[in-house]
């Protein structure tokens, strides 16, 4: 996967976002050992210090933890990952509705559009 970064936003914040998606989507499961800072830095093609900063943020949010001398692990607390997923989904949904509101469409209409997209998915699959 290729990661694109917007140079206008601190890089560690963008790395943090990618990491959250990894946790939410289960690329890294609860309790799983994470690759080293250096391995992550190579994957994201960012500076190891930037990676370290993003991981420290995740740690302060209790989404990952460090086992001394052993490396970093995803939290064992499934509820906190579920909560993260819920918050993330809500943010995405809000931004969709805000966009629709800007062009004069209310909640009911917006949902209709969502259903139409759903139909489009079905047709492409068949």
């Amino acid at each position, binding site marked *: 996967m290729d990661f694109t*970064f917007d*140079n*206008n*936003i*601190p*890089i*560690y*914040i963008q790395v943090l976002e990618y990491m959250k998606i990894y946790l939410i989507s289960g690329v890294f499961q609860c309790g799983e050992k994470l690759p080293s800072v*250096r391995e992550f*830095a*190579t994957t994201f*093609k*960012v*500076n*190891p*210090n*930037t990676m370290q*900063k993003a991981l420290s943020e995740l740690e302060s949010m209790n989404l990952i933890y460090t086992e001394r001398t052993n490396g970093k692990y995803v939290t064992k607390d499934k509820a906190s990952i579920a909560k993260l997923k819920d918050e993330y989904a809500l943010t995405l949904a809000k931004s969709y509705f805000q966009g629709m509101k800007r062009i004069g469409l209310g909640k009911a209409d917006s949902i209709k559009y969502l259903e139409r997209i759903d139909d489009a998915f079905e047709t492409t699959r068949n």
Partner: protein
Amino acid sequence: MHLKLLEIKNLNKSFDKKAILKDVNMEISSGKIIGLLGKNGAGKTTLIKIINDLLTSDSGEVYVQGKPIGVETKKIISYLPERTYLNKNMKVSEVIQYFKDFYEDFDAEKAEKLLKDLGLDINAHLSKMSKGMQEKVQLVLVMSRKAELYILDEPLGGVDPATRDYILDTILSNFNENASVIISTHLISDIERILDEVIFIDKGKIVLQSDADKLRKKEKSSIDEIFRRMFKC
């Protein structure tokens, strides 16, 4: 104890009465990638040459790991000059041997591996290679030393975007954690993603030294944008 990797105090240098560096002060610690950013003629290369003992200053002090510039500091600095100094009649394998003889900290195996990754023929003569390929060879040699400080003067100069990405990857994955890398360039947008710190130099003066992400947060824009705004012609 936290020893400063590079310390420069009140450094001045002029050529023919024209001041090129004016009272330069800076400190660099270990484990960082630093962008030395400035327009053409801002004094980047002159500063780098002084740190590498290729030019002498008029006044001021430069210390690398607490030692004044000299033989001992050259041992721990790996320098990529703007222009290659390699003998074009040599084969790549001969240049590797040359570096092995010259630098105690040179890792020939690593150099050979990196060259192989890049698809460069170790038996080829430099004169038979394109400019971009020669630049890659030079970078591989520089990054294959186990130095404390890497100084890369315009490493992205004449290379295509794909090679540029490769060079950045090479820099990222090959500098050891206790070392620092100083990259001088005016091609800021290409490299700003990998920088920890930025130093802006203009008309021979250091005008700004800051953590890259902090600067982005404060100014709400890219380093490239901040640089353009500050030095608008």
